[in-house]
């Protein structure tokens, strides 16, 4: 318990906590009550998509962005004395990207290095459904880091299943994947997960079309999160602490 401030007895009518010394010091002769802040370590968790599409390299190296985010989140949690945990998933839960919710940093470095240096990746997102069972019971802050290139229904189900936690969906997108197409030529676009190949005839207006499709997708993600009173954070230019801070200030406002 940490002392926070004095409040008047009227604001906090708890006579057990009357501070006699402070009340006597007051020329206005008011009764003051001590208010304490509860010193509680809340769990901070990162649920990280480590599927193949998260290895995308456009203007940013998506795997590195994710690793930076994890590192930063772990560091600030540690500083505040919060517990930090990490759960990676692709088509199943990934044990090599797993940190139980603890307060120790020992294993963290290794896992972050592992994330940063493109490890073998697998397709899929189905592991996400198993994540809620492994979350701590007490409510905490949960970052869901992914490119959200999987069905919206899965996101909806996850948000329902992880109810007591405050979820921050963090979407890692890259400007290349939607506006980085060359102006002309032919491209055999290959899906990084399904391996499907599609011939795209690049011509004027293609980038605009793709951008429109991505904007629509973004709107859909926003809408889904909104129905859970959540707000997604879109990171398009890699990880920066400023954009994350701005996000939280936005929530406070």
């Amino acid at each position, binding site marked *: 318990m940490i002392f926070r401030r004095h409040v008047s007895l009227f604001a906090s009518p708890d006579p057990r906590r009357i501070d006699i010394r402070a009340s006597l010091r007051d020329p206005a002769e008011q009764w003051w009550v001590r208010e304490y802040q509860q010193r509680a370590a809340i769990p901070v968790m990162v649920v990280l998509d480590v599927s193949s*599409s*998260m290895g*995308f*390299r*456009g*203007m*940013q*190296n998506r795997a*590195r962005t994710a690793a930076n985010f994890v590192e930063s989140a772990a560091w600030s949690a540690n500083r505040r004395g919060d517990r930090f945990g990490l759960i990676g998933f692709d088509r199943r839960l990934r044990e090599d990207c797993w940190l139980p919710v603890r307060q120790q940093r020992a294993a963290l470095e290794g896992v972050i290095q592992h994330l940063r240096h493109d490890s073998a990746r697998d397709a899929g997102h189905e592991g996400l459904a198993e994540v809620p069972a492994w979350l701590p019971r007490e409510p905490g802050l949960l970052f869901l880091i992914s*490119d959200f*290139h999987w069905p919206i229904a899965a996101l909806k189900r996850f948000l329902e299943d992880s109810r007591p936690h405050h979820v921050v969906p963090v979407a890692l997108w890259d*400007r*290349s*994947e*939607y*506006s*980085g*197409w*060359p*102006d*002309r*030529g*032919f*491209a*055999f*676009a*290959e*899906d*990084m*997960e*399904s391996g*499907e*190949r*599609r*011939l*795209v*005839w*690049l011509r004027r207006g*293609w980038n605009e*079309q*793709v951008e*429109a*499709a*991505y904007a629509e*997708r973004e709107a859909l993600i926003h809408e889904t999160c909104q129905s859970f009173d959540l707000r997604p954070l879109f990171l398009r230019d890699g990880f920066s602490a400023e954009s994350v801070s701005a996000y939280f200030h936005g929530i406070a406002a």
Partner: protein
Amino acid sequence: MFDYPWFLLALPLALLPLLRTPIQSLPHPFLQLLPADPLGTLLDRILRVAAVAGIVALVLGLADLSRGERVVERVGTGAEIVILLDRSRSMDQGFGRTTGSEQLLMTQGESKNGAARRVLTEFVASRPNDAIGLLNFSTRPIHVLPLTNRHEVVQAAIEAAGLGRGLAETDIGLAMIDGLRYFDDRPYTGSRVLVLVSDGGAQLDEVTQVKITEAARKHRVSLYWIYLRGRGSPGLKAETGGGDGQRDAVPEYFLDRFFSELGVPYRAYEAEDPQQLKAAISDIDRLQRLPTRTPEVIPKQSLASITFGLALLLLLPVVIVSALQVTRWSRSAAH
């Protein structure tokens, strides 16, 4: 059909384009997000199908696909006609039946030569599809024109046959041999006709007879003899009695009998005036207008140039697309 059929074992390779295109891909995290590009999809299909067909063509080309030897029935449209025109002096005279008054007045009707030329001109004009050769003969054969389709030249040559005077002698045997030689080294494409226009017959020695017989049979020639009967000339039909031996002494009889025993289609026309001449020519015209059907053996033809050309054409789209392919994002830094 195939010279190297074992190359056909490579035919399954044609399925490769359906599995994979030889073009580097551009990795994208989520294709489903991309808008539909029907043109690109169509192009993809065309590309793959063309590549499959291209490889099939390539393999067929390697196996040396060829069209086998076969026999086709060919319908000849144009005949080859060689006209042997007598230019002896007797041809400058009129036809046989002249009235006494004409003789007295020394007025001659149209000369045999002139009538023959006029009728031949019409004949040539009526057969635009035929190749026509012309040979004048007298003492020696005179090659005027080889077989040609350029009828204005033929007409001019026939016209030119009226210039000057005829010569004294007539050697039908040499003329026949030279006329038949016109067909040497030519493919047999239609009926071959030799029209002999003369006003007299000839005795032929054994060697000449053999040569003519051989050449006529070899070239499968139809022979027409238009006999312009002059004054006092004997007719071809036996008007007077006598045995064969006696009649053979008459050159016209002899020639007629020799021709009819030649073993080729033969017909003789006796023309005593321009009308009969014209009738004879139109008869030939009618007979030789029938389409000639001949079986022709077409030798094996290699289709390699077609198959390889086709392969080149069909594989071209793949080459073009791969030349214009992009494998990098235009905005990329973190590589």
